[in-house]
């Protein structure tokens, strides 16, 4: 297991190579599948598409302190697409917010890891999410508060591509550029699949870049599984002034397991124990 002391995370842009990030993300993907199969429910597909980005945020980019989740100088991460919390829970556990064993409490009665993120029960969760289209608005509020406090902390927020069908996402997008929130970075996890099928068939969100641009955002398009590109995009956002940044991350739903990739059916269904064995073999565990 790759572990770091809590103080490792308290500065931004840490020395960590892409190979190490990839190895961590592989562990996170195994966690996602074990957690969801153990719970016999949850959302593995989108968790796998989001994993590399969340790993890069917590291990490379964000300033945070697993020993003190409410540390004032921390950067914030808001998971607006709350259903992919298995990826976030795994990263929080692995960076030291709570013991790894807790992952097996996911979705269990009395456990601290709710089916969707709850800031009341889980250290490291900045705001409770789950109902789509609300987290990004809360991220705007956090960014406004940080500006009022003249803090240099940043707010990172991940939204789903299906999620941006919610009108409230665009209300939030409009308000973020109106208030010149250059401390807000939104990452769209564009795996192009939602529960009912391909996003462009259910309700097209395209052209995505042009929409965010028209709303006054600085936009960057990347491959959401290429650590070099993720790092570069996050660093580019640091130099953008007076406007928020949207990173459109092209991703693959179910990334990392051949029989899960690009298949909508794995949106909200756990692998069977047999399928889990297959998948873990592919991810190099068995």
């Amino acid at each position, binding site marked *: 297991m790759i572990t770091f002391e809590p103080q490792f995370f308290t500065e931004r842009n840490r020395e960590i190579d892409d190979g190490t990030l990839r190895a961590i993300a592989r562990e996170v993907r195994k966690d996602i599948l074990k957690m969801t199969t153990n719970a016999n429910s949850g959302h593995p597909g989108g968790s796998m598409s989001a994993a590399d980005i969340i790993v890069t945020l917590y291990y490379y980019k964000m300033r945070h302190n697993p020993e003190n989740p409410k540390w004032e100088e921390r950067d914030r991460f808001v998971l607006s697409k709350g259903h992919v919390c298995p990826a976030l829970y795994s990263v929080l556990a692995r960076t030291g917010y709570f013991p790894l064993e807790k992952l097996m409490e996911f979705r269990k009665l009395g456990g601290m890891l709710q089916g969707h993120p709850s800031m009341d029960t889980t250290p490291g969760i900045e705001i409770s999410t789950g109902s789509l289209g609300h987290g990004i*608005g809360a991220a705007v509020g956090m960014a406004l508060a940080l500006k009022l406090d003249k803090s240099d902390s940043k707010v990172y927020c991940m939204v789903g591509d299906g999620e941006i069908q919610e009108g409230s996402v665009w209300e939030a997008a*409009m308000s973020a550029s109106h208030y010149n929130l250059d401390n807000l970075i939104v990452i769209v996890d564009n795996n192009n699949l939602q529960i009912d099928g391909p996003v462009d068939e259910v309700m097209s969100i395209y052209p995505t870049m042009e929409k965010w641009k028209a709303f006054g955002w600085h936009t960057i398009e990347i491959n959401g599984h290429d650590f070099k590109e993720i790092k570069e995009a996050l660093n580019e956002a640091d130099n953008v002034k007076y406007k928020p940044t949207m990173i459109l991350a092209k991703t693959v739903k179910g990334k990392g397991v051949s029989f899960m990739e690009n298949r909508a059916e794995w949106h909200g269904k756990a692998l069977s124990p047999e399928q889990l064995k297959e998948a873990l073999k592919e991810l190099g565990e068995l």
Partner: protein
Amino acid sequence: MEKVSLRDAYGDTLVELGKRDERIVVLDADLSGSTKTAKFAKVFPERFFNMGIAEINMMNVAAGLAASGKIPFVSTFAIFGTGRAWEAVRQSICYPKLNVKIVCTHGGITVGEDGASHQALEDVANMRNIPNMTVIVPADDIETKQVIEKVAYTDGPFYVRLTREKFPRIFDENYKFEIGKGHVLREGEDVTIITNGVMTSFALLAAEMLEREGISAEVIHMPTVKPIDKELIVKSATKTKAVVTAEEHSIIGGLGSAVAEVLVENCPVPMERLGTPDVFGLSGKGWELLHYFKLDENGIIEKVKKVLERKEK
């Protein structure tokens, strides 16, 4: 009785709070002139956020501000704040118990000429049904000022319902508002009248008129609809054995429902509810509409007589 503006009292109190505490921030959705948050905006432009005509986002942004240590007051018309934005209030404010104060004006039928689309007759029900939410319906300007000061420094989500119309002043400076407590304004033996908002002034009138007919009515002002003052309701109903509620709200889900829930579980006595029936409002002058729906002293007296008949059987 002198008529006073609850929303002006709100705007003025916000400015006072803003002077004392930098954590106070205010959000509005393009109605700051009507909700009177414009008063705060003028003095503290850097702590006032106009969110445009986008109430869902306004609630979410308020949640984010609260999660970052601010004390956000959020205002718009009652129907938009509690209706359109309901699920943002539920998900982002109430579920995580965040310190957001939703203060809406234009509650009730006295919105008047704008008609059904703008008259919130469901707002108290909408907010009362969400866990962690406290719901308060003040009666006049003096109470409004105290409510706003109190909720600013009481942790958790609040909904305060104010109105467009001016209402009669019924309290003086000796009044002391407490969250979750009803106030006996007049003691009586034959019937208990429980009200809030504008209906409290009508209840006092009705009680005087009933006294002339030899009926002794106890009048309880119940500003906090949730959590409701169960103890006081049970105590009074045990004594009078007949209860009438009156509110400027649908009879479904508001004060009448909250009182009925307490009575039915603790001391079932005959009860009558006065409110708007299960219908939409309509255009007209505010006070005309109150009388049209019998939301006045005569309506209360009618309900009192009805409940007394049932009590005698």
